[in-house]
């Protein structure tokens, strides 16, 4: 299965290629007053308004780090309703994922896969189901 590897700081996730729309350079983000912490802001995408999210925060892993706030790239993915931009700190890599080496921890992370990387050594990533992970209810959770 082909997937994009998303990095936010030291954390990695994989998203199936057919759930991704594009990778964009982050332009100026407009913060939203009263927004939950997982919403970093709004930006312009081809005449439309795109919500930019902190993926670790959506997944309940704490408030957005300064690194996530300053993320240079966005990966636009299918969300439960529409699309959303996920802020990432490195250019996403396109990889072929092998058989799972473990199960995920719920509907958002489906399975765990090994990434064999000569430079960084073996690593594992959780395969994200963006439709299940990026819903208004999850995004609206206070941290």
């Amino acid at each position, binding site marked *: 299965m082909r997937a994009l590897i998303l990095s936010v700081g030291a954390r990695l996730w994989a998203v199936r290629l057919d759930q991704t729309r594009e990778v964009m350079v982050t332009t100026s983000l407009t913060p939203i007053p009263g*927004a939950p912490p997982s919403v970093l802001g709004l930006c312009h995408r081809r005449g439309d308004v795109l919500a930019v999210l902190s993926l670790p925060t959506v997944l309940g892993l704490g408030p957005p780090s300064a690194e996530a706030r300053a993320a240079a790239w966005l990966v636009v993915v299918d969300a439960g309703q529409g699309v959303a931009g996920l802020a990432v700190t490195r250019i996403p890599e396109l990889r072929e994922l092998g058989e799972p080496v473990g199960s995920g921890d719920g509907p958002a992370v489906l399975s765990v896969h090994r990434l064999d990387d000569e430079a960084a050594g073996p690593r594992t990533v959780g395969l994200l189901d963006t439709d299940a992970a990026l819903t208004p209810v999850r995004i609206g959770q206070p941290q």
Partner: protein
Amino acid sequence: MNADVTGRFADEAEPRLAAMRAGLQRLESGLDPDLMAELIRDSHTITGVAAAAGGDEVASIARHMEILLQEIGNGHRPASAALVDTLLHTVSGLLTIIARLREGGDVSELAQAQRAALEAFGASPAASPPTPTGPAPDPAPAPAGSIRCLLVEVGQRAYALPLDAVITAAEGRRGVCVDGVAVDIVGLGETLDPEGGATAPSVGPVVVLTGADRSYGFRVDAVLGPRNVVVKGLPAVLPKMSMLSGAAIEVDGSVLCVLSGPGLVERAKAVVQR
């Protein structure tokens, strides 16, 4: 206007204004296309007869009302309680102006007050001159999703406030009264971000917004002025956020947040109680 012309004009205008008052009161209980058509026709006729009689002050105010009513009729502006209230006040004001014209008195100050109240809602007759005769025109086309907003600045960031929720904007006041009653004032920055928003200075521009049951004054850093804003819906993936009614894309590609008057008023109640 000579006395004879004034009398004929007043005889024509007064019953139409009385009908408009009754119609606007009915409008408070719901939008009805036939009622809107009647209101637009009456305001158009008053504009026409006033312009033909040389009553430019009345013509200008009636034309302003006509534009606002057309915007309500074509769905580009909600019939908010504040707007309907202002239109009712304007009808009463026009009746007072006409009574004073019958007596040969000066109406410039009264007319100025009526114009100022309508200008808070943005539509301006200067942009579309009155047509003294003929049937009421079709509603003017407007860009889809475009609403008239007042742009303000807080913390070096611009926000759009839909004008239908704006009662008034006052420069550099310590306090603001609406209909003789002082309104509570809170900082807009403090309301938008209670944890991080700076406390508003005690003097500076204040924008009074109306909510479901009360109004608040919001202190801002600057009032940038009214503007048409093409409002886009918020991304569906976002949860409901009460203070935000939409967003717009600016010419430089940045995103402008369009705030919700009622949402801000509700939040202001909580800020005041803290």
